[in-house]
């Protein structure tokens, strides 16, 4: 049991790994905001766009979160157990692995007045020989941004719901409620939703915090007069004047306060919703008429969100091989591989760096998460709700609020600019996702296997390596793929901790996106997706191949 001592420390080490960077980064952000007579704060208050930017941050964030949650719940409630549900499950991983920037750029081309949708119906149906002068992208209310966020957050919430559902005993509860006369949706709302939502709360909070502070998506789809607060903070951060950085810090603190406020409002409305649910249950909600409508809305909403993502990416794929492509042509005049040939050398080097960073961050995160879960199992530790909050900390605290401070710390220590440092910074975001994706399956493992193994004289570590790890190989590889995808998609941590010297597919894609070159953006967005997609494919194929003659290891059982 020589490893027992170390293993026992794994959970504490892991929590420290999440708390320390966030706390240190926050401190590094707070200080410049209030130093020198708080001139950063004063500059922030002088900014004419402040009220609107702050309100935009709140409205787009809350709207995107509420919509994503509603679509997710509708999908689960009306499609659970159907073939469509299985289809969605299969599409989930690839949709999740699409980086935000790529998704936003694809969506932008789809819905712009000169985009694919208008091209498809012009000029024969609309009479438009020129793109209509409609304010769709960068609209002042942030509607495009909200739509973009929803397309990316629905897959995430759906995945979290999938993980939570087995613990809520959906089928039986719905059957019982339906046998008591409730419609399907009413049955779901009354009998499943409360316990499902309890487990979805933290993911929902993370979605809220992310949606309010998204940088890449807001740069591409969001309002520009003014920008959302998070984008403006990043712009200030890049300001060559010293005051810009202090203003950025003050803005980041305000951003943090706004997220806190929004979370407070959200929790308040949870209370109201709970009362409403109790009232509905007592009133004997049946609502049979709702079922067909809900199913219809769910299918349309699901198709819209996934369709927007898929079509947008397809559009980028076509752009990546397009020659001249003028409005209102639905397809390019000519196809060429020039963009790809041009990107090829960069792809190899940048892809290599991206892969290296993702592999290290994922491997370390996976090792730590496995150590935590194994320690939890061996020492019968009961993770408190505090531990779960810590796990979500890097997802709840806005990146713009703590990464600038972390960058200064990295600079002082001399670690900044090295790919290992970037990888370490990625771990702060990779680890929670790896944990969230692996823990349910790891905990669900039949612990009698461990008892059986030990009764046969096997040490705990032999049980771990020979029994548990192979048996949970599929979820472990899936968690690794999720972690890899998260790492590949990181923009701000790579940019700031890498000091601009570490180029990944994502930093390249975002740098290119400022140039608006759809062809190259298309190529990079696809390349950005290939790495995570390969990861997910391996997570499916490797266990299938290893256990091809083991019926007890098939997905169904």
């Amino acid at each position: 049991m020589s490893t027992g001592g170390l293993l026992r420390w794994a959970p504490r080490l892991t929590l420290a790994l999440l708390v320390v960077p966030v706390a240190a980064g926050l401190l590094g952000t707070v200080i410049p905001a209030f130093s020198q007579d708080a001139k950063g704060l004063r500059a922030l208050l002088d900014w004419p766009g402040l009220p609107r930017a702050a309100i935009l941050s709140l409205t787009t964030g809350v709207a995107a979160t509420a919509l994503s949650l509603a679509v997710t719940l509708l999908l689960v409630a009306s499609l659970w157990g159907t073939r469509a549900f299985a289809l969605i499950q299969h599409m989930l991983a690839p949709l999740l692995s699409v980086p935000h920037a790529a998704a936003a750029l694809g969506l932008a081309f789809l819905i712009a007045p000169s985009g694919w949708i208008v091209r498809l119906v012009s000029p024969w149906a609309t009479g438009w020989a020129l793109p209509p002068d409609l304010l769709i992208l960068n609209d002042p209310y942030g509607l495009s941004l909200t739509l973009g966020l929803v397309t990316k957050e629905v897959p995430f919430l759906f995945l979290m719901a999938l993980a939570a559902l087995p613990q809520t005993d959906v089928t039986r509860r719905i059957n019982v409620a339906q046998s008591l006369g409730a419609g399907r949706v009413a049955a779901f709302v009354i009998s499943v939703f409360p316990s499902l939502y309890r487990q979805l709360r933290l993911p929902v909070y993370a979605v809220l915090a992310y949606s309010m502070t998204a940088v890449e998506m807001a740069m591409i789809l969001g309002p520009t007069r003014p920008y959302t607060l998070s984008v403006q903070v990043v712009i200030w951060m890049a300001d060559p004047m010293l005051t810009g950085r202090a203003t950025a810090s003050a803005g980041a603190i305000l951003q943090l306060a706004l997220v806190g406020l929004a979370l407070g409002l959200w929790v308040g409305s949870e209370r109201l919703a709970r009362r409403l649910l109790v009232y509905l249950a007592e009133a004997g909600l049946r609502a049979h008429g709702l079922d067909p409508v809900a199913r219809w809305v769910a299918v349309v909403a699901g198709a819209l969100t996934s369709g927007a993502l898929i079509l947008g990416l397809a559009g980028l794929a076509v752009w990546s091989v397009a020659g001249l492509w003028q409005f209102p042509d639905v397809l390019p005049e000519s196809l060429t591989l020039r963009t790809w040939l041009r990107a090829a050398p960069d792809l190899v080097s940048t892809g290599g760096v991206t892969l290296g960073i993702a592999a290290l961050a994922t491997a370390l995160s996976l090792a730590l998460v496995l150590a935590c879960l194994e320690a939890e199992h061996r020492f019968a530790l009961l993770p408190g709700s505090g531990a779960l909050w810590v796990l979500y900390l890097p997802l709840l605290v806005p990146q713009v609020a703590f990464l600038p401070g972390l960058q200064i710390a990295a600079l002082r220590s001399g670690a900044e600019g090295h790919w290992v440092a970037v990888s370490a910074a990625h771990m702060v975001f990779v680890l929670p996702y790896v944990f969230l994706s692996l823990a349910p399956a790891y905990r669900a493992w039949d612990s009698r296997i461990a008892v059986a193994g030990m009764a046969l004289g096997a040490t705990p570590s032999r049980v771990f390596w020979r029994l548990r790890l192979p048996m949970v190989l599929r979820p472990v590889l899936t968690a690794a793929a999720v972690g890899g995808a998260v790492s590949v998609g990181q923009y701000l941590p790579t940019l700031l901790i890498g000091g601009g010297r570490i180029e990944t597919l994502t930093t390249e894609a975002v740098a290119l996106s400022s140039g608006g070159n759809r062809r190259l953006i298309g190529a990079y967005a696809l390349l950005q997706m290939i790495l995570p997609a390969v990861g997910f494919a391996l997570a499916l194929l490797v266990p299938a191949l290893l256990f091809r003659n083991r019926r007890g290891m098939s997905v169904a059982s």
Partner: protein
Amino acid sequence: MNRRHFLLASALMLALPAQAQTAWDSTLEAAKGQTVYWHAWGGDPKINDFIAWVGEQAQARHGVSIEHVKLASTADAVARVLGERDAGITTGGAVDLIWINGENFAAMKDQGLLFGPFAEQLPNWPLMDVAGKPAVVTDFTLPTEGFESPWAMAQFVFEYDSTRLPEPPRSLAALKDWIIANPGRFSYPQPPDYLGTTFLKQVAYGTLADPSVMQQPLDEATYDATVAPMWAWLDEVTPALWRAGKAYPQNEPALGQLLADAEVDVGFALNPGRASAEIAAGNLADTVRTFTLEGGTIGNASFVAIPFNAAHQAGAQVVANLLLDPEIQARAQDPNILGFQTVLDLSSLADTDRARFDALELGVATLSPADLGPALLEPHGSWMVRIGQDWIARYGVAQ
């Protein structure tokens, strides 16, 4: 090497004090094997390819390799050097070379963040057309004093698709009338974007009673009255802009994409060769042409500067010098490559080198130097900053 070139080279060597020659030799020696981290805007694949090619040349000729750090904004690199200084990093900094000009240069020079002066000691400096292109030593009215080395000339040109707009408006007044008569067909990048602010200065040139006041730092006492005609011009056109002025493209490529998508009929760039290069790359229709305004358009130069704490200062100087090499300059001016105008004085070049430039085709959409018209001087940097800020207060926040 032909005779004339040899003579010129000898003359140059003679002109340089022996000490300087030795100094450059030791710079070359120190640079060998170094990797220069060149922080440059990475939004245009043509430019990225060009920088990669310069990297090959630097490797082949001097054993110096170039790592292009692709920026979304030049200010990122400036902020980085500032951050390093604040963290006490005075040597071994991450940024070796920055593509820079205007306010970024002013800010770095002002704060003592630059290495130098070095530019006028570069062996290729004597080829520079200082007399013909004063912008190579005056960056937004600020004397460069050798703290940055120019490598390309830029001039503001409008771009339009001749099939949609047979006769473009060639004065600011005509442009205003055309915008109002054709609502939704014109826009400009949102200030404080570099090109967007340059457009505002172009408007100022056409509307201010005496544009020459912009060559001095702005005077608070008279500023409001001075620029009032510029705001008046903008107030008139804004309702007729693309999206009625409720949204703006973010930068030059975004505006270029609007032109390519036929969302606007007139775009512009700070590069007379951009349209031709985009046509050659298949990104714009070959019916796109360019025009300038009757009184001339703003011209400026692109520079490279070296931060005070750069880890590879020798290598960075070698690259700055290489950028002035006639072969490299000619390639940059090739409309199929970049279409950037050279900073060199063609008459000072050897025949073979001049022939490289003579062999270049203008490109289908590029104006000849004569048609390009006069290049107006950049206003003092204080105007750019202030006009950009005021624009945000006036138009940058939805009413």
